[in-house]
């Protein structure tokens, strides 16, 4: 093995330093320490792992070489969404997320890490403005886990153990909710959607609603991109039975759509990824949870909550953790849930994004999504054999396209689209067989009219 005089990341690997330190400890080598581990528990031999690439340039070349085997959404035009969406990341967002101060900070204290606490507080505050809710967590892993957490919170608040998951919900998120809620809410029932409009089937909800239900969860826009218009009615019904209403929402829609709090949600959740966090193969997610400022709800948050307070210095803002005793760090298993490394950096990035866009920007980006989705749904619907949009309801940035009459499968079509350097919509035929050969298409501010027209032309040729 070829070694360096010292490894750039391991300064004390320099021979003289290492020897000096061993001498100071009073031993000859590290084996004098490791030797205490019983022989039969020791790893013998050499690790079979690749040789190191010590040159930074060569390392970059090596990894670029691997990544070049991918085709990415800058090379291709992508119409994929469904839980991870292509939105533009403003340069300032990237700059701040890459600052070593935020990037490499641990959990820390509000004294030396004051700025980080403030950035988290501001993230929560701005999201609170979008949601019109006063209590917002620091982000958890993703929307699926956030939704699962709201189900658990509801179970604790109500003392009940059933949940109704309504309408078109992402199968990925549903799977997360089920795993996460299993021990407290083993009974998760699904409420159907109207095959025509894509909206929640209220009659089905009424049939399944009872005073055993802890939580009624739905998404808006739902997984099919359809804007749910019956929120108020659903919330009213749920509240009549003493259930808690949790609504999953795409935050980038909130410049144009009413926040869930306006139609009766007790808890809102969703993903911060649309707020300028790069997709990163799904690595860009971060789940938010928000409630009104009701101690009964606030006490059930499993996440860290940062509060604004004062310090001994007059006029100085200080930050600290609100109701710290909720968390498992302080109280282990009797706590509400476990807590750990989650997605704070994405919260900070999303905060920068909201500050950059402001109310106008949020409105414009939302309007742009609405118009592009309407346009794309319309032009695709003009292609023979394609039904688009599949649902009659209003759409935000996603819509379902049905290919049944083309006689082709989504899989076949998407393969062909690759020749046009296009990633077609997400294939729904496995998760939602009742929709036949359907795909979920997504358009955002990154799509031009040309991109959409090109897609339409390509599809026309493929299904012809």
């Amino acid at each position: 093995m070829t070694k360096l005089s010292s490894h750039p990341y391991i300064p004390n690997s320099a021979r003289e330093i290492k020897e000096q330190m061993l001498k100071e400890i009073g031993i000859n080598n590290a084996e004098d320490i490791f030797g205490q581990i019983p022989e039969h528990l020791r790893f013998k031999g050499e690790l079979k792992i690749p040789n190191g690439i010590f040159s930074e340039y060569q390392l970059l070349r090596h990894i670029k070489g691997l990544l070049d085997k991918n085709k990415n959404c800058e090379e291709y035009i992508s119409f994929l969404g469904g839980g991870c969406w292509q939105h533009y990341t403003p340069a300032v967002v990237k700059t701040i997320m890459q600052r070593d101060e935020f990037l490499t900070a641990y959990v820390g204290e509000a004294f030396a890490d004051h700025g980080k606490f403030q950035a988290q507080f501001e993230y929560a505050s701005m999201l609170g403005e979008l949601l019109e809710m006063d209590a917002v967590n620091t982000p958890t892993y993703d929307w699926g886990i956030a939704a699962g957490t709201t189900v658990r919170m509801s179970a604790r608040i109500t003392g009940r153990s059933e949940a109704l998951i309504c309408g078109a919900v992402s199968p990925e998120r549903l799977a997360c909710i089920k795993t996460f809620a299993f021990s407290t809410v083993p009974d998760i029932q699904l409420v159907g959607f109207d095959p025509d409009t894509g909206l929640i089937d209220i009659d089905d909800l009424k049939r399944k609603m009872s005073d055993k239900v802890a939580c009624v969860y739905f998404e808006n826009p739902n997984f099919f991109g359809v804007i749910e218009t019956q929120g108020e009615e659903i919330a009213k019904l749920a509240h009549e039975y003493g259930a808690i209403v949790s609504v999953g929402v795409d935050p980038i829609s909130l410049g144009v759509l009413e926040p869930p709090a306006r139609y009766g949600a007790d808890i809102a959740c969703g993903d911060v990824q649309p707020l300028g966090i790069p997709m990163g193969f799904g690595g860009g997610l971060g789940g938010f949870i928000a409630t009104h400022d009701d101690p009964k709800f606030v006490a059930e948050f499993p996440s860290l909550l940062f509060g604004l307070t004062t310090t001994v210095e007059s006029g100085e803002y200080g930050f600290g953790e609100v109701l710290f005793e909720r968390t498992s760090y302080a109280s282990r298993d009797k706590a509400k849930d476990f807590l750990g490394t989650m997605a704070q950096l994405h919260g900070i990035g999303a905060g920068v994004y909201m500050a950059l866009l402001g109310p106008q920007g949020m409105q414009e980006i939302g309007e742009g999504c609405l118009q592009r989705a309407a346009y794309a749904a319309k032009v695709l619907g003009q292609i023979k054999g394609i039904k688009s949009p599949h649902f009659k309801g209003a759409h935000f940035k996603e819509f379902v396209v049905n290919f049944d009459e083309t006689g082709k499968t989504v899989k076949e079509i998407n393969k062909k689209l690759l020749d046009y350097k296009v990633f077609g919509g997400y294939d729904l035929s496995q998760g939602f067989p009742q929709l036949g050969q359907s795909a979920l298409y997504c358009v955002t501010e990154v799509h031009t009219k040309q991109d959409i027209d090109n897609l339409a032309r390509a599809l026309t040729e493929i299904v012809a």
Partner: protein
Amino acid sequence: MKKVGLIVNPIAGMGGKLGYKGTDGIVDLCKESGAVPESPRRAIEALKKLSPLKDEHEIITCPSEMGESEARAAGLENIKVVGTIVPGNTTSEDTKRAAALISDHDIDILLFAGGDGTARDVYSAIDGKVVVLGIPSGVKIHSAVYAVNPKRAGEVAYGYLAGKIRKTKQAEVMDIDEEAFRNGRVTARLFGYMTVPDEPVFVQSAKAGGRGSEEVDVENIAFRVLDEMKQGWIYILGPGTTTKVIKDKIGEGGTLLGVDVVLDRKFIGYDVNEKHLLDILDTGKPAAIVVTIIGGQGLIFGRGNQQISADVIKRVGRENIIVIATKNKLAGLGNKPLLVDTGDEETDRMLEGYIRVTTGYHEQRLWKVSQ
């Protein structure tokens, strides 16, 4: 302006050096033997810790050696003296009178220097809401109302007055059971609870900091015990604030200081004695005992719950003993074991070894028991 009440039992601690189990009732004997009282010195040591309060306080105390002298010796100002005493000849009645008089002055905290007898006297004279703190200087300290040492008492009192310590908790007032003492056994009885500042463990590190909430822990422990109660079983619930939470969830009438008995979630006996317990066990129903730690020394049997005697324990069986305690209370023991002192060697030995202590709804901790 903070108001600090102060009572020094000037004779506390005298008996100790002479090998007595206390000074109560043997004052003259002590004096004749030339014993020097410990409490004035210890009180001064604690009171010096209040000096950062400067003139932001008022001391309300008794004349002469019952507080005034110590406060002055500690360099404190703004001293208001109430009541009268006969110097050199104070009694337990003086402590009671002083406690009543001083606690009428709308005080923020009442400090008292003494031992278990002093704590009992204060307890008998004040309202339960008054926040107190004991400066340990007596011979017998079973009561948890005392700080670990005088210096710490001063620091905790200062912390409470300066707003650094905000929470309070209930702590045991205990004293030697004279009846048992006359029968040749040294054992402590639980007389009640007083409110003391709850020393914070002052960390706000997000990584793990904060401290568990005692109240939430106790609630969760209670729910666990209730959820695991079996039909047709007799549950003997010992005294203490932790077991009281379970009693309150079962219904009204559960006692704080007594042993109560429950069957199918209903009380079938309140504040029962040993004989009553044995009669209940005679019904032949399976039984379990629920006890918590009494006092700061980690005792689970033999202090304050003597009704649950060696005979009772033997008939219930070790496997049916449910020990409950918050994990903060356990952690407070450090590496020390839980203690048992049932008066019966064989029973004590049977109880030795690791035992499960229920510390939360989902959590039990193993802890060592020894005699």
